[in-house]
């Protein structure tokens, strides 16, 4: 495959309070084996050399597990390839000459820090209200003292594979964090270890989710389709069941 040229439309915003706009850039001679973020690195190198302000992007592991990177590419959180993080997108997936739009994860609960970098601490605060088993370190019984069926363990792992990137919020037309919150609640609802504090967990986490200003879940399911881990919205239903049990029973 030969090298390609692209036109980029990138969201630029200096700071949280400042207005932003889409700015056009061109990148030339891009190898198809380059990752999307490497292409952005290249553009930034160019901008630095020209004495311009490089585009702020955050990324870390670049292998799709840390959840740091997160861009809306061509209108889709983490791009058009499903079950893939932004950092795992390669330029061979784009057509030569294509115009690519790059925007930050948008949500009122994710204020923009600069350009494409947003603040996702709201998700941490949801976890702090109950995204754990409330036991202290030390004094745990033998790990095999409590058998858990393979199916249950796998279901819990499906839920807990969430990388906390916030793509679900970004893709949701309502900026709902139901998939993120639901996955964590569902993980512990499946496991016997999560049982003692399950009521407190779901009520407090759901309350925090609302407090942060995330929207209502309208069951569009867009979150499931953009989730790099493919977490299903059945976990949202599970959260709702847990919520009813906790508040009605």
């Amino acid at each position: 495959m030969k090298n390609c040229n692209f036109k980029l439309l990138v969201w630029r915003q200096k700071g949280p309070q400042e207005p932003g706009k889409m700015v056009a850039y061109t990148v030339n001679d891009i190898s198809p084996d380059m990752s999307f973020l490497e292409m952005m690195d290249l553009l930034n190198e160019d901008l630095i050399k020209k004495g311009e302000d490089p585009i702020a992007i955050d990324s870390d592991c670049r292998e799709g597990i840390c959840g740091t990177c997160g861009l809306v590419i061509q209108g889709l959180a983490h791009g058009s390839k499903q079950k893939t993080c932004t950092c795992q997108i390669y330029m061979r997936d784009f057509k030569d000459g294509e115009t690519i739009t790059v925007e930050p994860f948008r949500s009122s609960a994710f204020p923009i820090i600069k350009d494409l970098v947003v603040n996702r601490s709201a998700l941490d605060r949801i976890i702090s209200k109950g995204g754990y088993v409330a036991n202290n370190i030390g004094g745990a019984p033998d790990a095999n003292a409590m058998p858990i069926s393979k199916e249950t363990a796998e279901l819990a792992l499906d839920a807990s594979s969430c990388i906390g990137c916030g793509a679900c919020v970004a893709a949701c037309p309502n900026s709902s964090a139901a998939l993120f919150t639901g996955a964590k609640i569902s993980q512990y609802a499946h496991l016997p270890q999560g049982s003692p504090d399950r009521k407190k967990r779901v009520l407090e986490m759901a309350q925090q989710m609302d407090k942060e200003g995330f929207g209502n879940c309208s069951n569009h399911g867009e979150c499931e389709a953009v989730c790099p881990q493919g977490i299903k919205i059945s976990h949202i239903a599970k959260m709702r069941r847990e919520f009813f049990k906790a508040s009605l029973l």
Partner: protein
Amino acid sequence: MIYNTIPEGTPLNGKVPAGPIEKKWQSHKASIKLVSPANKKKYTVLVVGSGLAGASAAAALGELGYNVKVFCIHDSPRRAHSIAAQGGINAAKNYPNDNDSVWRLFSDTLKGGDFRAREGNVYRLAELSMAIIDQCVAQGVPFAREYGGFLANRSFGGALVSRTFYARGQTGQQLLLGAYGSLMRQANTGKVQIFPKREMLDLVVGEGKAKGIVVRNLENGQIESYSGHAVIVATGGYSNLYFLSTNAKNCNASAIWRCHRRGAYFANPCFVQIHPTCIPVHGDYQSKLTLMSESLRNDGRMWVPKKQDDKRPPNEIPEEERDYFLERKYPTYGNLVPRDVASRNAKTVCDEGKGVGDTKRAVYLDLSDSLKKFGLKYIEEQYGNLFEMYQRITGEDPYRVPVMKIYPALHYTMGGLWVDYNLMSNIPGLFVLGEANFSDHGANRLGASALMQGLCDGYFVIPYTIGDYLAQTGAGKLSIESTEFKQAEKEIQESVQKLVGKKGKKTVLELHRELGLLMWNQVGMGRNQKSLQTALEGIPQLQKEFQENLIVSGDANHWNKDLESALRLWDYMELAELVSLDALNRAESCGGHFREESQTEEGEALRQDEKFQYVSAWEYQGQGKTPILHKEPLEFEYLKPIKRSYK
């Protein structure tokens, strides 16, 4: 830097307690001091880093009642690079009934580290490994299970038993989320305060003790000081010194390096691990390397064409024209030799001109035979996600031609800040945990041991040993208005200001690439006196380039990745000199450190126990000055050093 004569300082004592090895930790715990529950709330502990070691330590200390402040460079503590560990975590549970024991885990780890670790520390690690699994399961970490509901185990390199617990290919993630959950629980109670997007830029030492840290707020560039009674540094390793590594982009050496500049000894810096099965470099724009699980070597055969510069595609090269170099050289272990051996041999065949791919720096990992033998379903089940990953990155479909190109890459650093048995550095009050310290893996780390060490340090060692220190130190804090803090802040401000004005021609990324390439070529898988001297002469030139020709964009009061990287790059440049110097000093081959002058006739690593059975701990003397070498002699009472052989 003068490197032909190295000044030697006083020998170090690791303070491993006396007594029989299986009683050391027990008797040590019984003898160290305690802080009363009422007094714990008078102490503040600063924890830098929120990976497995940092998060588990902070959570444990918060639960005990200490005031804890956690600093991480990410926007959330959950993003630390421990999350990327795939394989698993070792523990001597002996659940599979295959005759595993604390002793075996101890001896495998010590042997795997080529007898360059402390016996006492390694034994404690093996001893505590079981409690880690219990703790994690109680936390709701969804480990893989058998149909009967009990935990599943798998085998890993360097061991003859199955003792690795795992959660699909995301064990690190699940363990970290467990520790992160515990941490957030403490954050909710207010015992732990979390400071995200903060990078530690200095350690503040007052009256000879660690009293606080100075950090830079990455969001707005503010320089902030925090005072505490003890500082825990758990900021991981320094693989990114080589630019291309499997580490995350933000992993860096600045925190430990700045501790080193304040007097903390840096131990065994030349011990770095190079992992054999990574996806090869494919262009000079590349930003990082991706690891593929070692498990591929269970069913894959590594080979290169016998002919140099063979341009045919792999499936057109007939069997007799292929060199299965590991099987040829190591008939017993074959493709399952330890990481360092596999890596080195891949390098050797590429050096001989037999490498494959565009860059000629890759070898084949061939799964065709296994595919024929076990069928598609088996391969899909075992390696499906790795095949997908390979295809995503390279654009080649391994299902069509099951021959992948791989090459070794920097992965882990065994070296780090020197600590004693209490995990305290030579600066009282400065504790170093996880990959950031040097303690348990000697010259080579076994697979699935890094997670074990991080959690062991954080959950089960530091909560005890820090109490011993705090009980003996006063409750008085050093004010952040003191000259020590103000001086440190001023120095950082100045170094930042010096950088943001730079209008040279070379970007930080370009210069970092140059440093990485120099280090990879000269202080990589094979080192010799000449290459190390080349490195030691090359690094000052890069430093000069940094000072005279660097360009740094943006300002100091906004999110500025370029400035962050520039600050880190200078520390890498100084550290690179130390790594090279340490490698030059250690004229033996052991574990991941292969000195070409010290090999057997068959080209195997040759350890020289009479001369080098010690830990090298370096004391900083100033920029460009030769550091002082302190030696901590290693004694092996229980397991006598033997030669590793995989023939």
